[in-house]
């Protein structure tokens, strides 16, 4: 699989290609889950969860003393779900709006996580800075044996996460669709709206943690939100939006990685930058196309509410 790709692009090394593959896997896995966040207007909750998982990771780390992925995954998923709950509970009790409640929750949890990491710094090197940046460049140095091939550990985990995401999404497609577009109608059909919401939050938290090590806590937000939001600009239909988001996520990861390689700078940072450029560019393109179409035809607005 690697050799033909190397012949196609001889200026890249096998390590480069594995890193790029890892970035694509992270981007697609997060992007697909993120589509549902965008549709439910919960993009900022993705931001909040990705900050808030830090104490879960640090806690698992302090308890076990290793950088094993499984305890961290468990700890972070629990904290991620707690963030979603706390945000809505604070909004009710404290009578502040949702954004402010989320701001209170995620900044407090993130601060707690940074302090816990300072405590852990004595045991193993866990730098708060690398939590923010991620270590995409170091992905090829940590490999596992998968069916006789040396695969980067991060790529194996992200591939697994992507497969599970797709299986869950296909299995619960009807429920996800119904609750995202018309929760009241879904509830009247007997769909457990709260349960679907909970499952989605757990999926966001789990994907965030798996992607976290390679892309860092803030850049994972770009991977969660940007593909879905950009795809949503171009289409009003759900299934094309999911496919388009997958394509955008892959393209962003590849282009971002290549540009970073060329400029010798942070790949994760460049991927986030390219995501934003793609989003702003899409806004410009869609608005221009909409304006020309409006002036040539009758006044159909370029945007409408999504059709399920």
């Amino acid at each position, binding site marked *: 699989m690697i050799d033909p790709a190397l012949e196609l692009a001889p200026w890249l090394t096998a390590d480069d290609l594995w890193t790029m593959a890892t970035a694509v896997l992270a981007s697609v896995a997060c992007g697909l889950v993120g589509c549902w966040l965008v549709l439910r207007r919960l*993009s900022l909750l993705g931001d909040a969860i990705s900050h808030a998982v830090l104490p879960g990771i640090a806690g698992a780390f302090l308890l076990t003393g290793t950088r094993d992925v499984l305890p961290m995954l468990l700890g972070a998923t629990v904290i991620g779900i707690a963030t979603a709950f706390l945000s809505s509970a604070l909004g009710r*009790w*404290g009578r502040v709006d949702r954004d402010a409640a989320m701001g*209170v929750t995620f*900044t407090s949890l993130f601060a707690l996580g940074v302090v816990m990491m*300072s405590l852990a710094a004595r045991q193993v090197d866990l730098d*708060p800075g690398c939590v923010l940046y991620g270590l995409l460049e170091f992905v090829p140095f940590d490999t596992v044996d998968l069916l006789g091939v040396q695969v980067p550990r991060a790529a194996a985990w992200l591939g697994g996460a992507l497969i599970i995401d797709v299986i869950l999404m296909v299995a619960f497609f009807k429920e996800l669709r119904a609750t995202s577009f018309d929760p009241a109608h879904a509830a009247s059909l007997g769909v457990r709206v709260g349960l679907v919401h909970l499952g989605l939050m757990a999926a966001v938290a789990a994907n965030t943690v798996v992607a976290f090590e390679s892309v860092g806590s803030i850049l994972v937000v770009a991977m969660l939100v940007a593909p879905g939001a950009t795809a949503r600009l171009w289409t009003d239909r759900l299934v094309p939006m999911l496919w388009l988001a997958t394509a955008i996520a892959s393209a962003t990861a590849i282009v971002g990685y290549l540009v970073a390689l060329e400029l*010798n700078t942070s790949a994760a940072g460049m991927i986030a930058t390219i995501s934003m450029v793609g*989003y702003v560019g899409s806004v410009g393109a869609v608005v221009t196309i909409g304006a020309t179409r409006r002036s040539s035809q009758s006044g159909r607005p370029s945007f409408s509410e999504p059709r399920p």
Partner: protein
Amino acid sequence: MAELLRLLSLQDSSTRVVMLSTAGLAIAAAMVGSLAMLRRRALVGDAVAHASLPGICLAWFVAGDRSLAVLLVGAFVLGLACMGTMALVQRLTNVREDATTAIAISGFFGLGIVLSRMIQNQPGGNRAGLDGFLFGKAASAVTSDAWLVLVVAGVVSATVLGLRKEFGLLCFDRAFAAGIGRPVHRLDALLLVLVAIVTVAGLPSVGVVLVVAMLVIPPAAARCWSVSLGTMLAVAAAIGAASAIIGTGLSAVLPPPGGASGGGWPTGPMIVLTAAALFVLSLLVAPQQGLLTAMWRRHRLRSSVQSSSGSMR
């Protein structure tokens, strides 16, 4: 112990100035944050804060001068650019604001990381100064910088207090404010500029990632105590100042967690955790809406009803 006493009694003049400036900034941020929260723009500060990282890096590249004032001007310019872009996207499309905000937060931060790595790769470049901006390093601030922050905080607080009536009208009934001829667009813009100013001024002490907490947590806590704008501003300012002083003090006094060689307690997270503790306290015991207060009131009511119904029998 002696150091703790020295710190608390504010005998050391440089500590005194640094603490004063952090507290002054927290007061300004709490007041501006209250207005932003009431105007439902609580998380705009987060986008500005993340956009300031590439701003700092660009100023580093362009000016070559590494004084705090120059770096903060760079941060402010990019913060405004970020808000402008977000407003433009909002005007052009009817995509909900939240996706745009989330993309701006991570995209600008990504750009900042790209630029800071490029600075690091330059011959002779080091980003020791930049890393301080991530989590804040109030304790190492220079006295002249502290004075600068204090002056900025004073100007912002004075503006908020001077325009209190106009801002209140804007937050609670924008249509009415426009109807009686208040310049609502200009007031909205001014509020956003104030948010950008306090966010950028807070970077040295609290850091890029957490500075938004100073805009959000004290107002949210004050919301539990108050039913009028004036009280809310006052309570938020008090809570902000208390968290800044206690948090800065703790991070300076506590023995470093990583041993003598490791880094000390990060200032920003300590300030934020103090504010969070005060918020939880407010949520529980505030006189009107506190959870424990309400429980106690219900208990009193139930026992009085039971005793009066018992006497009737």
